[in-house]
Structures are given as C-alpha cells and as structure tokens.
C-alpha cells in the first residue's frame, strides 16, 4: 500500500471541505424563458429544498398536466444531506489514512455519486415530463415535457435550460481535484519506479 504525497493529502482534504458548501448554496438550476417571461423563471435545487419561481412554474405547467412541484415529491431531499456528509467524511478519512487504495475508493465513490445523481434526475425528469394528467387543458399529441438533463431544450413556448448551480460547480471542481490527485499520484509512482 503506497502512502500519498503530503501535497495530495492536503488537496484531498481541501476537496472534501469544499463539498461542505453543498449545504449552503444551490446545487442545480433550471431556467426558463418564454415570450411572456422575457425576464426568465428560475428554479434552484438545494441539498434539501427547491426555491425560486416554483409556484409560478407549477401554475403554468398545470395547463399541460404536469405535477405540482413540491419538496415532498423528492425523497432524495431526505437523504442527500447524509450522502454529502458521508462523502466529506470519506474524503477527510482518505487524507488521514494516507493510502492510495482509499483514494481509489474515494474517486469511484465520487464518480458513482455523480452518475447516480444524474440518472436519478433524469428519471425524475422523465416522470415529470411524461406522467401527465389525462384531463389536462392542453394536450399536444405525442408531446412530452421532460426537462433537459444538461443544456437547453425548447418545450412549447418555453426555452428550458438545466445545469449545475454554484454548489454543483464546486462539487464538480472538488471531484476533478480528487481525480487529478489520483492521476498525479499514479504519474509520480510510474516516474519514480
């Protein structure tokens, strides 16, 4: 079991600590524009909450039979705080234990969490966009309203954008930092060998 370089341990600890920001800033954002909303509508997803123009978006979406967006429709909000807490703790322990193997595990965990989050978000978006009230006022045959996973998409009169918010970017940055450290460690050991 190879120990890590001191600089690697510091960087891993910093990456772990940065992830704490997830508790204080929004992680993901969905922005929408329409001819009637040139100023745009915004929905911010936090670790355990949704804020922004949620009521307005729900009020508009009820015409096409989409569900009313509420915090309680996301079970994720009840356990995301623990997942992030676990990742932060795991990062700090990685820096403490000082073994390459643990760093590998941490990288895999981070990547898996990121992929799982995106899959989970896509599944919610699929349900939200497809599972429509059959008595809705406006039914466009063949039309579904799944929001974009990442990027921009035109949905009837709305242009919707989905992407990481500050917290999401910090998370991505932290993950990239940790992966970078692993690459650096491997590179160093190859060179030293």
């Amino acid at each position, binding site marked *: 079991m190879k120990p890590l370089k001191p600089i690697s341990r510091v960087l891993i600890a910093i990456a772990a600590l940065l992830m704490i920001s997830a508790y204080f800033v929004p992680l993901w954002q969905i922005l929408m524009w329409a001819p009637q909303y040139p100023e745009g509508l915004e929905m911010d997803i936090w670790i355990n909450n949704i804020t922004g123009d949620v009521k307005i978006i729900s009020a508009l979406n009820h015409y096409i039979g989409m569900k009313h967006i509420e915090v309680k429709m996301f079970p994720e909000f009840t356990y995301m705080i623990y997942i992030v807490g676990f990742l932060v703790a795991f990062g700090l322990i990685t820096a403490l234990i000082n073994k390459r193997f643990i760093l590998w595990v941490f990288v895999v965990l981070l990547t898996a969490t990121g992929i799982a989050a995106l899959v989970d978000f896509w599944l919610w978006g699929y349900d939200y966009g497809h599972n429509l009230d059959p008595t809705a*006022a406006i039914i466009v045959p063949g039309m579904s309203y799944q929001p974009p996973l990442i990027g921009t998409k035109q949905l009837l009169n709305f242009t919707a954008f989905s992407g990481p918010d500050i917290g999401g970017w910090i998370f991505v940055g932290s993950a990239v930092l940790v992966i970078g450290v692993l690459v650096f460690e491997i590179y160093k050991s190859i060179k030293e060998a």
Partner: protein
Amino acid sequence: MKTITIHRVLSILVVLATVVLWQGCKPKAPGSVTTGDAASQAYVAPGKYDEFYNVVSGGFNGQMSIYGLPSGRLFRIIPVFSQFPENGWGYSEETKPMLNTSHGFVPWDDLHHISLSVTKGEHDGRWAFGNANNTPRVARVDMKTFKTVEILELPNSGGNHSSPFITENSEYIVAGTRFSVPVGDNTDVPISSFKENFKGYISFISIDPADGGMKIAFQLKTPGVSFDLARAGKGPSHGWFFFSTYNTEQAYTLLEVNASQKDKDFIMAVNWKKAEEYIKAGKGTTSKAKYAHNVWDESTHTGVSTIMDEVLQLDPAELKDIIYFIPCPKSPHGCDTDPTGQYIVGSGKLAALIPVFSFAKIQAAIANKDFEGEFAGIPVIKYEAALHGEVKKPGLGPLHTEFDNNGNAYTSFFVSSEIVKWNVKTLEILDRVPTYYSIGHLSVPGGPTSKPHGKYVVAYNKITKDRYLPTGPELTQSAQLYDISGDKMKLILDFPTTGEPHYAESIPASLVMPNSTKIYKIEDNKHPYASLGEGMTKVERKGKEVHVYMTAIRSHLTPDNIEGVKLGDEVFFHVTNLEQDWDVPHGFAVKGANNAEILIMPGETSTLKWKPLSTGVFPFYCTDFCSALHQEMQGYIRVSPAGSNVPIKFSTGKIEDQAGGAGQ
C-alpha cells in the same frame, strides 16, 4: 382691336399678379411642422424606456395620468378622486371609504395640480400629491404602487385650488381656498355680507417623513380673497411660502368684471417658520371642524375613513409677522420661485408685464417697514421695495413660469398662445415659440425644484382645434413637447392627453423605476376576508349577507358554483388573487352588477358587493385576460326565492351529476 386685346391681357395679368401677391401677403396658417431631427428626438424605440415619468393632473376627470417623456406615451391612469369602473376604485368595498368626505360620499372631483415629494429641494421619487378643486381635498399617491393611499379633506375651504405645493424637504404641502366662505357657527349669512363674514383659509398639511402621512398642522385665517396658486421658498427663502391672490376687490358677483377693477392684487408672503413659533408658544386656537381623513392600509388592502372634529388655527391679523402682502399687477395667477429661491415671479393674467420680486428685497422692506399701508390688518409692502425688476412686453396673458438649470425662465401665455423664454437675472427675453393653442400650464422636468433636470418643456394646451383628427364636438386635449437644450426652443412632438391636464411634473425614471412594486406578498395579506389558499375558500351566511371567500388563479375561480343565495340577500364577493407573478391581475364581474367590475392585483383581496334583483342563475367571470384559458375562468351563482330552503353550497371542479353535467 389688337391694342385692346393686349390691354385686356395685361389687365388680366395685373389682376392675377395682384391676387397671387395678395395671397402671398396673407399670414400663413398656424401649425407649422417640426424641423430637422425632431422625430428622432421624441422617438423611443419599441422595448426601450422613456427617460422621464410625466405625472399629469387629469383636471375634470379627477385622476392622475402617467406618461413617458419624450415619447408622450400614456402608461396608466391612476384613479384618485373619481370612481373608476375599469378597476373598481370607489366601487369596491375597500376603496369606497377613500372617497368619503364630511359631505358624504363624493365620487368625483377636479384635480388640477401635482407636487412630487422633495428632499433638500430635489425630487426623491416617493410620493405624488394632487388637489381636489371642488370638494376641498388633497391626495397622496405612492410612487411604488402608483396607487392613491391617502386623501385628506380640508375644512373651512371653498375650493382647493391653491394646492398641493410643497416645501423644500416635504415638510408641508399647502391648501389655499379659491373661494372665501363664511365659516364657524354662523354660516347662514347673506352673500352680500362677503366683506364682513367671508374668510379665506390656508391650510399647512404636515407630511410624516417616514410614511408620508398627512395631517393639518395649522390653518391661517386670512382676509376674504381668492387664492390662486402658490410656491414654497427654497434655499435662502426656505421657511416662506408665496401665494397669488385675486379678487382683493372682495366681489361676490360677476367677478369677471368686479374682480378685475384694481390695478394690483397681492402676492401673499407667509413666514411659516414664524407660524410654527406661535404654535410652539401656544398661540394657536383649536376650532371645531368636520373633515374626513382617509388612509389606505396596504396590509389589509382596505381604506379607512375617519371623521376629524377639530383643527388648529392662527389669526395673522393678531399674530404679527406671519403674513405680508406684496402688490402684484392684475389678478396674478402663477406665483413661482426660481431654483435659487431668490426670485418670485408673479404672472398677472391681465398684465402687460411680468414682475419679478426679490426675496432679499422683501426681507429688507419688512425690516425697514417699507409699507404702503394695510389690507384687512395685514401690512402691504411697497411694490417697488420688493421688486427685482419687470420683464417688459413679454406677451399677452402670462399664466405660469417654470425654470431650467441654466438660470432661464419659461412663461406660458394663454392669450398670445406661446411660451416665452427669458433670463431670470437680466429679465431679457431670449426666445418665443407658438403653442397650438392657448397654453395653460407648462412643465419642465424638475422645474419647480432646486435642481431642474431641464431638457424639455411640455405645454398643456387648452384648445386643440385642428391638431388631430376630429371626434365630434368633444375633442382630445393636447400636449406639446419642446426641446429646450439649445438656445432656441424646438417643437418636437404633439401628443393627446386624457382628461384635461392642468399642472404636471416630470421625474427621471431612475428615481422611480427601481422601486416599483411588482406583486403584493400573499403572506402579508391581512384582509379579514382573504382566502390565502383555495382550501380556505368558503361561503358564509350572516343574516341577509352572504360572504363569498373566493380565490382567483390561472385559470379558475374557487368556488365557481355557488347556491343558497336568496332574493333580498346582499352578496359580498371577497376575491383574493393568489398569483405571485408580475403582471397577472385577475378581474371579477357578475351579471347585472349595479356598481362595477373589480381588478385584483397579485396577492390582493378586493370585494364586490352585489344585490341580485331577481331569481335565477347568474354568471360571473374574470375580466382581465390572464391566461390562455382566461375565457374558461367563469362560474355560476344561483339565486333562489326569499323563502326558499336551498342550502348554502359551493364548490369548484366537483361533478355532481355525471349524467346531467359534463362529467369526466
């Protein structure tokens, strides 16, 4: 033959030439077109904002209107003293108290003048005040919501024309009566006893610097004359107020002739700081008076009217040094202080010159007792002692003067139908432009403040004639915009106006726009009949009253099926707009309503009273096109005979009879 023919031809040619020359000599018709790049100066491209909010009095429509300058586009009419069926002002249960007076419900008035609040002599963008010329009142409009939030009636006044002019830090707005009237216990007197029994009253209304709340701080009892217009001193003359007067002849009939006899009437100078000292010293007397004070509460979305019963008064004939008269030629109308506060311009509407008085000279004359006598116990300062100088041969019928930021004055001339630009210090005439036709008030952005914004002058004309496509005997009113940024004034735009504008003020958009309210927060709604969610809607019977707690949200009303109302009941629809989104008002209207419809802003609750006069099923619906399914935003209320036992019942979206109704 030949010579004769030549002569004939020649004579015909001479006649023709004469006709042509004669036509050429005839003055050209007025209405000359604008020149050069005028159109681009007044053009505000689609989607772009105007530079100024133009707050305009509506005259006989009793309202204020908001235009943009330089485009002249009308944005909104703010109902103030007059009922407004298009949004329910003065018809809804909440707004009715706002139009209450000591004479009962007065649902109209004649709004002449605007004053925008100032701090240190400059616009602060907080409130706009307007006067009611008929049933004496002043109103305050909040510049965040553009809504009338306070109306104060003025006792002992016969018509509030000399109002609502404002002091340098919005300490006071004033209200001077146009008609002197008998006051007190004995008001049933012969009209011919004018000199003995009729008094003029000037009210000083204090403005609460925190919330704008108005209160009659004191009234000055003055001789029986007519007060026309007024302006506060500023800078060196802060602490003084100047009022123009007419009918110092004290005529009570055919004023056209009888009030135009004297060579000079007065400008009345009021030392209001002195009046404050007397009040502090306990020299004021409290008199009985009956007047309404109506205040809008933004949390309950409701107006409350309180009848007040006394007012503090000062008698300047006994309490010396509060007021002085300054002779001013021929029934002065405008009485305007320049931005430096050093000069007061009197505009005698029948005078052939414009006198400009010097505040420093007035003070010296008072110190030296340079008086020519007394009028009703008040010292009259010698004309020459107060005079800075006269603008000679300015035009005919001077009315009002506004100022720019370069020491120039702009005076409107009704009779000669023009604006004349002159220098305040040198009194030299610099330029003149015609107006189409017969200008009344004029307005330079920031013109009455210590720091005019300049750039434009707007003429508010009294005669429109041929300026627009005719619309029968009753024509639109006409405003004209002139560029005053150069040496010469340039007409750049004609634009029609609503009501009959008198005075107006303009304020840079940057001082108002950032504060504009978008919605009322639903969680702050403390209306006693608000439904803060569809789950809280209900219908309640209280004796003969049926209260419907209704909500409106795109695109349905809850409840939309109501039964159990009986003939003889009064139905109160308390409609709460649950939207929390900008620019999504809902309306509410019910068939056969004898009052109006109502518009309800997001987060607001408003009540329409409806007394059905027959049994049946009556439709109601949303009147503001709110959404794609606005047309579906409708419902029914059933009215049964007086003795019927139909129970109170209400719902939305409940299908009772799948066979009989449109079941899902």
